[in-house]
């Protein structure tokens, strides 16, 4: 074990996999010579050279299409998006190609590739640069969607993504890049997809979340424990596709109350899927309707005071917990 930042954990995962498999390579804007806008790829060009650390022009459709083509013939490309917002320029390559090739080839062709980059709200980046896409991508069969909330998961899940045989949207929280945590050194450490985790045990309310909102939920849980004696159980989904709901059902069967927290907009979001699944599967266990905590249903405003209003905060989660407890 070593103390590592989320950022370094991501880099370690890529470098370990590039050491292990010569077919793994990375491409993206400003990732080589400049070493990445968020310094994720620092040192990688130097170590692996320009054939495996490829600077691309500003051409998202071109680079993702290229990656799909590479993957179909046996390479394992990682595409870094400067921010995940820009991946929608390549939506056709992701949704109509990467996600479907295996299926409509009758299983003849694998598409082992990862698209990764910073995701979600930042600070005053305005409406085109602050979006969350997990439910958008998770809607499509054929894609896997990962949203790590700790440095260890960032590393372990990314290694699984790179080693896998399917296209993966790997959504990093830019706000967590500097966060530190214990990360196993073992180069064979991986975290399998589809295994939600109990991030904190508690008896009163189940909070379901992922990525940065999961970290925020942990802070709220500690606060409520100290200040109000309310014990929340926090479930970290880690991957939205595949989605492992069993630990959520087990937890709800214990607490009988659930809150789902996401940064993205409420309508048709990940929290809606989770709340519906709870209702379908453990309805009889519920003592209160499932409550969603979400971002405000508006394009992200720029003014800082409005931006703060548009994103979920600790007090929203705390209020939701009390609501399901009728307190």
């Amino acid at each position: 074990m070593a103390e590592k930042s989320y950022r370094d954990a991501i880099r370690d995962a890529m470098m370990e996999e590039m050491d292990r498999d010569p077919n793994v390579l990375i491409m993206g804007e400003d990732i080589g010579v400049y070493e990445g806008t968020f310094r994720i790829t620092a040192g990688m060009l130097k170590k692996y050279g320009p054939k495996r650390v490829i600077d691309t022009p500003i051409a998202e459709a071109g680079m993702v299409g290229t990656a799909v083509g590479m993957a179909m013939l046996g390479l394992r490309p990682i595409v870094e998006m400067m921010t995940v917002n820009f991946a929608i320029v390549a939506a056709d390559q992701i949704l109509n190609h990467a996600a479907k090739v295996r299926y409509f080839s009758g299983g003849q062709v694998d598409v082992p590739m990862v698209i990764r980059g910073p995701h979600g709200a930042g600070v005053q980046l305005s409406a085109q640069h602050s979006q969350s896409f997990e439910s958008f991508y998770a809607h499509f069969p054929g894609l896997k969607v990962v949203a790590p909330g700790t440095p260890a998961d960032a590393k372990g899940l990314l290694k699984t993504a790179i080693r896998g045989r399917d296209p993966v949207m790997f959504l990093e929280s830019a706000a967590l890049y500097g966060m530190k945590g214990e990360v196993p050194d073992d180069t064979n450490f991986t975290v399998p997809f589809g295994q939600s985790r109990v991030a904190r045990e508690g008896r009163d309310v189940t909070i379901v979340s992922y990525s940065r909102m999961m970290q925020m939920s942990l802070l709220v849980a500690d606060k409520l424990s100290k200040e109000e004696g309310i014990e929340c159980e926090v479930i970290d989904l880690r991957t939205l596709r595949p989605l492992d709901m069993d630990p959520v059902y087990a937890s709800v069967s214990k607490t009988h109350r659930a809150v789902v927290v996401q940064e993205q907009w409420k309508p048709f979001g990940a929290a809606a899927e989770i709340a519906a699944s709870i209702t379908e599967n453990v309805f009889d266990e519920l003592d209160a309707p499932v409550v969603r905590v979400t971002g405000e249903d508006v394009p992200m405003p720029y003014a800082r005071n409005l931006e703060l209003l548009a994103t979920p905060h600790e007090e929203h989660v705390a209020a939701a917990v009390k609501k399901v407890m009728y307190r």
Partner: protein
Amino acid sequence: MTTFEVSVEPRVAQSLEAMLLIRAFEEQSAALNAAGKSPSMCTSVGQEASAVGVMNALDERDQILTNHRSAGHLLARGADPRRILAEILGKSTGYCGGKSGSLHISVKELGVVLTSTIVGGELSLAPGVALSRQMLGGEGIVVVFFGDGAATEGIFHESINLAAVWNLPVLYVCENNQWQAFVHRKETMLADHISTWGASYGVKSQTVDGNDVDAVTAAAKDAVAYVRGTRKPFLLETYTYRLRGHMEPDPASYVDPAELQSWKERDPIATYEQRLLDEHAITPAELDAMKSRVRARIEDAAQFAMESPYPSFEELTTNVYA
């Protein structure tokens, strides 16, 4: 309604004053950012002649689409520095009420349709803006500003081909400032000039020295006359250089100092000042007066922006739908 002094009667002194205003504005924005009083923005320092020269050739009927480096375009079009700076600070007095910041400013009354910060976003809209003008009547043309980096996006090629086959009055202005965020243009394309790509779409094209405001004005006037007269697109490349980093703050340590120095010596403002003085087109006293006028306007703009209120909380949910 702002007047169009600059474009209606483009005299040399006005070009200089417009460039000085842009430079002072950008330096003020950068200073506010450095002092922790403003979020980040992309400045157009070094590219003032391109903005001013092109705007000199336009009139009230014309529509403008621009990108993340838009403050110069807005100011050259006659936008109020107070309201741009207020927008950058996220204040309610900004052009978009604080909802856009530097990233998405539009100013309908000046024909500034949109600033898009998705690279190439503005290019995707240009044929439609032109078609709308054409179908709804009106003589205006559409000017779309984009970078050399945007030209490497597929949408550039779709946009210019559509404008060509549909005979749309779009003036494509590629501000080739040699940089695409943190990567040099030479790393991403083999062509030295984006203008050479126009011919393959049957679009008349030209490169002009983007650091010479008179040259840009002359080339833009020819281009605008062509687009207005033929209702066909034209591709004008203003060959220039980004003298500051990509965004604030950016120490730009990746820039080759010799290259930077060679372009600093061709600073569009310093060289133009010198030329006007040498030609006695302006006196040193007039130049001083001009500079203090500009300084006063920018100081006033900064004060206005700083003192303006933030948007009210009710604004959060307005304008999502009509």
